[in-house]
């Protein structure tokens, strides 16, 4: 029996909690959309139950807060291969990960979970604002030169209310690259790991007709370059997931509620769109390294 422990990572509102709720339902209920079935669960299931209830009602799945951290292990059997695996998914809150970049330390407990051989499911949210925007991106899009007689003084504007640098607000791709680098630097042990970049809220990208990898290259170029150039450290796949199936407005909510919960999920994996959100986990566990 192979025994691998994978970890879910992602900054606040990256979609990992919603994914976890959908995953919990799919493998617990054992519907026909996946080959993974739940054998047993260890740990505190209250947290999982809480988030899956919200997910089933098509409510916003409550965000994980620091005090809500719960660690559970799912013993899962792959009916296709017959293999049994342990999916330990410590869903540490996004704030815990913020501390890593901003404060340059991490909880010892998290350190232990991060410093494992298992795979990584890293979440980024497709429904996000551009956080790399520069002042010049704002100011020179065609409407700036109408009254520039006094442009010699444009360099100083006493009216500006300058915000102090806040490490929690630097571009998300920078924080992700930093974290992935840290995981390969002492005190962590450098090792080859599998990682799936999961682009959540994938439904908002469908009109763009792009793949998850293309989305990462377009929206997070630094991360894309880092992963491409560090294939010896990270064997990478990309996945698009809409664990809720769409945006939760009054109109769409009713149509989503009308569907079988497991079938409202969208999972873009390996060039195909389907409903099996366990595919990235199965790849992380696959014994073909």
């Amino acid at each position, binding site marked *: 029996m192979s025994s691998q422990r994978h970890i879910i990572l992602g900054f606040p509102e990256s979609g990992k909690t919603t994914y976890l709720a959908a995953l919990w339902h799919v493998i617990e209920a054992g519907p026909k959309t996946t080959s993974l079935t739940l054998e047993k669960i260890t740990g505190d299931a209250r947290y999982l139950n809480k988030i899956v209830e919200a997910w089933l009602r098509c409510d916003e799945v409550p965000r994980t807060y620091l005090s809500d951290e719960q660690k559970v292990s799912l013993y899962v059997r792959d009916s296709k291969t017959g293999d049994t695996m342990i999916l330990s998914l410590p869903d540490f809150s996004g704030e815990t990960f913020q501390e890593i970049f901003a404060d340059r330390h991490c*909880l*010892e407990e998290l350190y232990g979970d991060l410093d494992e051989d298992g795979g990584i499911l890293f979440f980024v949210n497709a429904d996000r604002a551009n956080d*790399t925007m520069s*002042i010049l991106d704002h100011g020179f899009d065609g409407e700036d030169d109408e009254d520039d007689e006094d442009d010699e003084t444009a*360099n100083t504007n006493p009216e500006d209310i300058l915000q102090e640098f806040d490490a929690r607000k630097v571009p998300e791709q920078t924080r992700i690259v930093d974290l992935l680098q840290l995981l390969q630097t002492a005190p962590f042990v450098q090792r080859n790991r599998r990682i799936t970049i999961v682009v959540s809220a994938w439904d908002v990208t469908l009109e763009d007709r792009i793949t998850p990898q293309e989305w990462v290259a377009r929206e997070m170029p630094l991360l894309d370059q880092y992963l491409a150039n560090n294939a010896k450290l990270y064997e990478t796949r990309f996945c698009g997931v809409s664990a809720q199936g769409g945006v939760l407005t009054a109109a769409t909510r009713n149509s989503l509620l009308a569907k079988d919960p497991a079938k409202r999920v969208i999972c873009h994996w390996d060039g195909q769109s389907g409903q099996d959100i366990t595919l990235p986990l199965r790849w992380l566990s696959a014994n073909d390294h």
Partner: protein
Amino acid sequence: MNEKLTCSTPGCEVAIDGSCLEGHDPIQSCPHFGQPDAIDDREPSEDSPKTSQEAGQEKPKVQLPHGESLSQLEVDAQQLQRAARFVVIMGDTSSGKSTLVCSLYEKFLRGAFADRSFVASTTLCAFERLAHQSRAISGASTPDTERTYVSEGLQYYHLALAGLENPSRRTDLFFSDRAGETYRSAMDQPHEFKTFPELSVARIVALLIDGARLAQPQELHEVLATIGRMVRAMLDSGALNDTQHLQLVMTKRDEVKRSENRDAIEMQVASLVERLQSNFGSRIATIQYFAISARDPKGEHQPADRCDALLSAWIDAPEPPVRIVEQNEDPSTGFDRLATITRARA
């Protein structure tokens, strides 16, 4: 000798028995030696890192690399793991040293640049601090870069890049940053240039010429003359030698281009470059000239305009030729070999 020995490698007992877990000898050659202990040492522990829990309610935490700009010692430690190329970026106050470094980082945030792509950086936090005042989130209406103060001393930024055509060719670059006033004051005591460690390890010295000041008629001649004197001072003091490449980099090209006197300015700069090449060309590997606009506040030039050629020159500048030194006859001892090495370096 009562100083506490530290190492960031978990399980290393250098503090207890003075030996390196990874077998480095001397222990100072270990890249993790001297780094903070892996486990936060608010509560020093004899044998278990978990004892910090006893300090209070706070959960124990593991200290991680800081991600800020690096000291010379930290750079030396990184060098032990991987060879790197040092680029000294020097120039007067407000000549655009930090803005140049920042603009290069910002380009890689948006994709490949200068036929290179991003591989790694151990100073991402520092880059982000530099970039803050150019970001929309800063609340400023005009981009700016926080200046480097004398009190900050010498610091380095790190960027590792790979060629787009040859991704396996990785180049680690360390850019030095130091307050302009320090270099300026060294001109009065040229021997001080010899005390700057960044100059002794640099393969490339990029000397910035402030284009905004060139555009001011009352400043033009003083700026150019200062550049000439600075080059002379560095060479005469022996801080620069013929294994190093000197680059004269006119920054804020956008300001010069907007000046009514742009033709005269460019002619004066060209004349300076020619004079320096003629006077000092034999004493240094190469002298090259670049004109860049790292960040035009009016947005008329692309960000990092013409910085691609500069970056490529940093990466492609050749290493000095290997000097063949006649070996001592029968170098049977380590001291004989050392004598050969010493002569090779002479």
